[in-house]
């Protein structure tokens, strides 16, 4: 097993030079010394965690006015169980960030909430309503959940404009969707320039922007966001987090997010969950986790 827990030669002046300069936005800068393999992370987490936090602890952590909650969820794909007895609670108007190694099951949590997985047992409630067995297409209408997928989800042959309109598909009046689209264009010149071109010609980052703004057209209650910053240029990453911040704080939306850019994610979120191998390893307020040296070493890249 490649187990390189010993830090590499730290006298890398290039890296430390960058660490000093605080100018870089987006992913931030930093050293790259800590090299740990995935198995090692799993093992370390197992060693350090005080056991899987139980539902009560999580509720306490979430505070009052619980809006989204998951109880003892077992879910996966086909016959395969990915999430084992997973619990989650978020209060209304709060945000939660899931971090964890690749393949831990973070996206699967979001998939399960929206109804893209096989749910073996457990319960998902939103605002007290049981939505466990609701079909995906009813989630937005009945439960007010919007989902920004991790991978590509634009309609490639529709224009950018039409894509935004589709965001308001459930609206009774098409005009409202159109107005919302105009507002987006005012905000993002980048998209405005491409408004009548098919979405397939957008670059990776432009698509991401489109996907995020499209999800907001319906003015949802809960936002599921899977790695919003993936593929975005540094300035946009900041911008996206500003948008999310605005949504949460000014508009009172509840946000559940997955983010590999854990530093950013935990900075932003009220609560952070660390997910490993389909189980919750650690939970706590975002800034607390951020300060936790173990979390830093194992998930933030040192």
């Amino acid at each position: 097993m490649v187990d390189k827990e010993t830090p590499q030669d730290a006298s890398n002046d290039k890296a430390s030079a960058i660490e000093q300069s605080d100018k870089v936005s987006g992913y931030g800068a930093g050293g790259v010394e800590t090299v740990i393999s995935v198995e090692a992370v799993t093992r370390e987490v197992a060693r350090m965690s005080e056991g899987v936090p139980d539902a009560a602890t999580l509720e306490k952590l979430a505070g009052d006015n619980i809006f989204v909650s998951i109880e003892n969820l077992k879910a996966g794909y086909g016959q395969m169980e990915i999430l084992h007895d997973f619990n989650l609670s978020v209060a209304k108007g709060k945000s939660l960030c899931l971090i964890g190694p690749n393949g831990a099951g973070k996206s699967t949590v979001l998939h399960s909430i929206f109804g893209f997985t096989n749910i073996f047992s457990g319960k998902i409630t939103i605002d007290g309503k049981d939505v466990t067995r609701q079909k995906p297409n009813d989630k937005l209408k009945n439960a007010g959940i919007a989902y920004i997928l991790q991978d590509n989800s634009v309609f490639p042959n529709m224009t950018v404009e039409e894509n935004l309109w589709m965001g308001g598909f459930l609206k009774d009046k098409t005009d409202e969707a159109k107005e919302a689209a105009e507002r987006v264009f005012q905000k993002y010149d980048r998209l405005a320039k491409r408004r009548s071109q098919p979405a397939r010609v957008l670059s990776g980052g432009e698509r991401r922007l489109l996907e995020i703004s499209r999800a907001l057209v319906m003015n949802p209650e809960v936002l599921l966001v899977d790695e919003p910053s993936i593929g975005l240029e540094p300035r946009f990453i900041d911008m996206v987090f500003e948008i999310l911040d605005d949504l949460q704080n000014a508009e009172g939306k509840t946000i559940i997010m997955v983010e590999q850019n854990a530093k950013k994610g935990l900075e932003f979120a009220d609560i952070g969950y660390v997910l490993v191998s389909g189980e919750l390893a650690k939970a706590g307020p975002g800034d607390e986790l951020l300060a936790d040296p173990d979390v830093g070493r194992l998930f933030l890249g040192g």
Partner: protein
Amino acid sequence: MSEYIIEIDSLSKSYGGVIANKDISLKVKKGGITGLIGPNGSGKTTLFNSIVGYHPVDSGSILFSGQDISKFRVQEIARLGLLRTFQQTRIYAKMNCIENMQVSIPHRKAGFWDMFSSRDETTIERAERLLEFVGLYEKRWLRAGDLSFGQQKLLEFAMALMNEPTVLMLDEPTAGINPTLINGLIDRLKRANEEFGITLFVIEHNMRVIMNLADHIYCLAHGQMLAEGKPEEIQNDQRVIDAYLGAH
């Protein structure tokens, strides 16, 4: 032969009305690690696609080891030892990880009858070692399509190493990868570069990665070359900061 393995001279590419690349000239040093950054939509992926032959270019030349490859097709270019990974991951979804690796051996060295040769042990061993490194050893029998997004990305990277390319072009290799693992990736990239002499050409948005990795960086904006230089230079270049990095 010159010290540069890829030399691009005033390359232009447009899609209908959209000019994705305009008069791009750049050089990738043999045995070095070159970075490519730039805002979203500035034409980085387009440039990669032009180099490896995914579409015809409008004008300009691309030299690989002194040979013009701007008219070559994908496979021919790949067989020269020029390999790229994709921004949107691509692996062989229905095959398991080991098979994914096995089939990624350097085919350019294969003759006609090698098609029918058996699957040898040394290849499998090498595959396992590489999988172990990216943390997929436990998953080696799993269908690659069932891996998570990040795991697929790692697998693709391992496959690229398996291929022993001369030049490896990576399109945002660390997007969606856990930060700790990113460190490992960088380490491995550096070792691949040092030990096997694989030239690297990397697109990244993650400054932590590119600044630590590259020894020379190009920055595109609006399809044009904005700046080039050493990491420190780029980082402090006002144009780059304005157009891309942003400042607090």
